[in-house]
């Protein structure tokens, strides 16, 4: 399966702590994206990292990509209660319009 797999499946932390979630995949990719889904809502794009990039930042988000290990991590620093959501990675192969989503990490930030 080309599906990405997030780890851990669920994560509970205190407000102010950092949250790290990982995504592993099996195929070659063109880019990898992270999305957030609040309960009962659609997915919202957070950040995209290309296969030739190793690290990207956006506000409190830091994404790394290791293509040799076929894995990516999403770090949320100084977490807030509003960060409570499910986080998904999505991978795409070159030349296709197809994005394969992972199984998601459910993050709960306790106030």
């Amino acid at each position, binding site marked *: 399966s080309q599906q990405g797999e997030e780890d851990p499946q669920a994560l509970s932390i205190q407000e102010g702590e950092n949250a790290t979630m990982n995504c592993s995949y099996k195929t070659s990719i*063109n*880019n990898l*994206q992270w*999305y957030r*889904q609040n309960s*009962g*809502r*659609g*997915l*919202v*794009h957070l950040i*995209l990292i*290309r296969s030739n990039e190793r690290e990207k930042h956006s506000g409190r988000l830091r994404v790394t990509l290791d293509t040799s290990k076929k894995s990516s991590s999403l770090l949320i620093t100084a977490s807030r209660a509003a960060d409570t959501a*499910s986080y*998904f990675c*999505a991978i*795409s192969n*070159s*030349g*296709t*319009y*197809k*994005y*394969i*989503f992972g*199984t*998601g990490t*459910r993050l709960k930030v306790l106030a």
Partner: protein
Amino acid sequence: DTAVSQTPKYLVTQMGNDKSIKCEQNLGHDTMYWYKQDSKKFLKIMFSYNNKELIINETVPNRFSPKSPDKAHLNLHINSLELGDSAVYFCASSQAGDLETQYFGPGTRLLVL
């Protein structure tokens, strides 16, 4: 203004019925998608259209038929609904190309009784 909208938001229906879900995007994107999210939150692509042309058709029962009357609309018609069709269906759109972001609609929660 909502970028990607879906109707209805909720759909409760009996087994065997036929139903449609509509999706519209006002972003001027070329590509639109339908995804199914099951109770375990696993999100799986079903179809994708680029400029009204079907480009992705995953292993989906032929009871599901997408229709794209124009670039801004991608509707999903489901015949002979089954219990296993209960899920949240998301429409999304993106500009053509790998490196573009997908914009998701709010989802349609389908419950088949």
